[in-house]
C-alpha cells in the first residue's frame, strides 16, 4: 500500500529578471518539473540532487506547505494543501532550518506544548517521549532553553518533536546538515531504529551520501526538477558501471598480470570486479612478495557526481 503518490507533480515560480534599469522581464521557472513517485508504507527513501534541483520544493508540496502548480499528490490519502491540518496529524516534519521548538523554552516544555497542539493522549505521548529520551540521550539537556542548545542537541530535539504524535510518514529535509560526526551518527542510528520498526515511512533529502548508504534502500535522484534515477544504490552502481576494486600491493615489481592494471612501478595491481572478488583473490596466491590486499567498494559520491554532471549536460 502506498502512503505517498505523486503524478506529474510540478511547481513553477515566477521570477523577475532585470533587463535594464526600468524593464523587468517575468520568467517562469519550473522548480519541480513533473515528478512521479510512489512510496510504500515503511519504505526509507533517500531523495537527493544538487542544490536547486527541487528537493525541498517537492517535500514542501507533500507536506502542505506549497501548493503544486500542476499534477497530483496524495499523502496518507490526503491532498496536502486543502487537507493540510488533517495531514499534519499524520506526518512528522523536520526542516533543518525551520524549528518546531520554542526558542525561549526548555525542550521539555516544547514537547508538552506539542502534545496539546497535536492532541496526543498523555499515555502515548509519555511512552514515545521516553523512547526518544533513551535513544537520543535527551536527558542531559532537556531542561535547557532551546536557544542555548548546540546544533546537534537541537536536531535531536527536533526529531523528537516530529515523532511525538506518532506520524506515519517522517519527512526530513537535510537532517544532518552542519552536524559533527558524533551527532550525525546519533541521528543516523536513531533513524535506523525508527525505520526498523517498519510502521514509519521515511523520506529524507540530504547532501551527505553516507546518510543514504546507512539508511535508505531506495534512492531517488532529482535534477532540474526531474527524477533521473529511482531505485536501489546497487542499481545506480550497475547503471553507471561503477565496480568494486581489488587493490594489491607487492614487494617485488611485476611487469604484468592478467586482468589487472599495473601501477606504482609494478608494485601495485588494480582489478575491477563485478560482484564477488573471490576469484581474483584466489589467483593471487602464487604472486611473490604479496604485501597487502584491499577491496574497495564503489564510491557512491563519484557515481552521484557523474550522475549530476550527466543530467546537467542533458538539460536544455
Amino acid at each position: 500500500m502506498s502512503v505517498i503518490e505523486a503524478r506529474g507533480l510540478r511547481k513553477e515560480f515566477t521570477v523577475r529578471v532585470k533587463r535594464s534599469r526600468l524593464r523587468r522581464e517575468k520568467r517562469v521557472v519550473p522548480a519541480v518539473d513533473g515528478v512521479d513517485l510512489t512510496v510504500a508504507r515503511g519504505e526509507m527513501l533517500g531523495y537527493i540532487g544538487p542544490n536547486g534541483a527541487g528537493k525541498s520544493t517537492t517535500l514542501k508540496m507533500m507536506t502542505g506547505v506549497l501548493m503544486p502548480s500542476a499534477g497530483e499528490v496524495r499523502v496518507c490519502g490526503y491532498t496536502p494543501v486543502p487537507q493540510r491540518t488533517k495531514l499534519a496529524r499524520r506526518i512528522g516534519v523536520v526542516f533543518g532550518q525551520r524549528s518546531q521548538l520554542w526558542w525561549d523554552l526548555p525542550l521539555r516544555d516544547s514537547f508538552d506544548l506539542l502534545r496539546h497542539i497535536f492532541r496526543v493522549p498523555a499515555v502515548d505521548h509519555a511512552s514515545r517521549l521516553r523512547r526518544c529520551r533513551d535513544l537520543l540521550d535527551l536527558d542531559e539537556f532537556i531542561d535547557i532553553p532551546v536557544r542555548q542548545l548546540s546544533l546537534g542537541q537541537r536536531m535531536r530535539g527536533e526529531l523528537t518533536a516530529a515523532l511525538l504524535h506518532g506520524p506515519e510518514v517522517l519527512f526530513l529535509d537535510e537532517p544532518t546538515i552542519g552536524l559533527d560526526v558524533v551527532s550525525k551518527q546519533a541521528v543516523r542510528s536513531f533513524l535506523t531504529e525508527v525505520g526498523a520498526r517498519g510502521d514509519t515511512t521515511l523520506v529524507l533529502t540530504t547532501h551527505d551520501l553516507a546518510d543514504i548508504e546507512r539508511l535508505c534502500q531506495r534512492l531517488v535522484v532529482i535534477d532540474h526538477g526531474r527524477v533521473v534515477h529511482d531505485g536501489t544504490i546497487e542499481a545506480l552502481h550497475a547503471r553507471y558501471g561503477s565496480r568494486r576494486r581489488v587493490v594489491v600491493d607487492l614487494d617485488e615489481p611485476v611487469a604484468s598480470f592478467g586482468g589487472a592494471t599495473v601501477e606504482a612501478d609494478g608494485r601495485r595491481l588494480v582489478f575491477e570486479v563485478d560482484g564477488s572478488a573471490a576469484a581474483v583473490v584466489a589467483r593471487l596466491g602464487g604472486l611473490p612478495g604479496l604485501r597487502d590486499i584491499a577491496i574497495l567498494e564503489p564510491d557512491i559520491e563519484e557515481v552521484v557526481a557523474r550522475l549530476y554532471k550527466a543530467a546537467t549536460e542533458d538539460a536544455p
Partner: protein
Amino acid sequence: MADRPRPYLALLRGQASAQASYRISFAIDLGTNVVATMLDVLTVLVLFRVTKALGGFTLREAMVMVGLTAFAFAAADLMVGNIERVKLYVNTGRLDAVLVRPLGVLPQLLLMDIPIRKAARSVFGATVLAVALASAGIDWTAARVGLVAFALAGGVLFFGSIFVATASVAFWWIESGEIGNAFTYGGREFTTYPINIYSGWFRRVFAYGLGFGFVAYYPALALLGRTDPLGLPGWVGYAAPGVSIVVAAVAAAVWRVGVRHYRSTGS
C-alpha cells in the same frame, strides 16, 4: 478534564512563558505604549483647541466618532494587530513551520505574540468613548444602546479585517514594507473625523468604496439623531456596522488565497 488537549491555549501558554523571560524588554514596550497613548490624548485636545467645530459637528459630537474609532482600532490592534508579523514569517520562510502544524495559520500567528503592552490604548479608547457618549447629549433609546454595542463589534471586526487584508499583501509582494500602514493607520485617521470634511474621489473611495465611512461616522449620526449632510437616509446609521461582515469576508478570502500563494524560501 485536566488532560483534555487545548491546542490554542497551549500556544498561548507557550508564548506567555517565553515572553516572561524578557521582562525588561516588556517593561520598555509597556512604557513606550503608555507614552504613545498620552500623545493620542494630546492630539485630540490640541485639535479642538484650534477649532470649535468640524464639518458642522461640535466638539462633543465629533468626540463620539473619535471615541468609537479609538476604541475599535485599539481593540483590533490588541487582538490581531500583530498579524503584520506575517511579513517576517514569509520573508524568512518560517511560515513553513506554522503550516505543518494541525492548526489554523491565522490563529497560530496571532498567538505568537501577546501584546499586553497594547492594552493601555484600548483602555484609553474606552475612556474617551465613555466620556464622549455621556457628554454628547444623546437621547438614549434601547435601539441606540444596542447600536453602541453593534458599532463597537463592527468597528473591531472592520479594523481587524483591514489588518489581515493588508498583511496578506506580503504573500504576493515580499518587500511590502509599510504599505499596509497607509490603510490601517491611515484608515484610523480617516474614521476619526466626520467624513464630510473630505471631498471628491478621496471621500468616495475611502468612505464608501473601502467602507471606512460606516465604522464611526454613520453610527455616530444615528446615535446623535442627526441627518446625514451627504444625503443618505437615517437607517443607514443602524445598518452601517453590518458592512464589517462584508469586509471580513473579503479579508478572509484574501488571506486564504494569500496562504496558497505562499512561495516559501530556500531550503
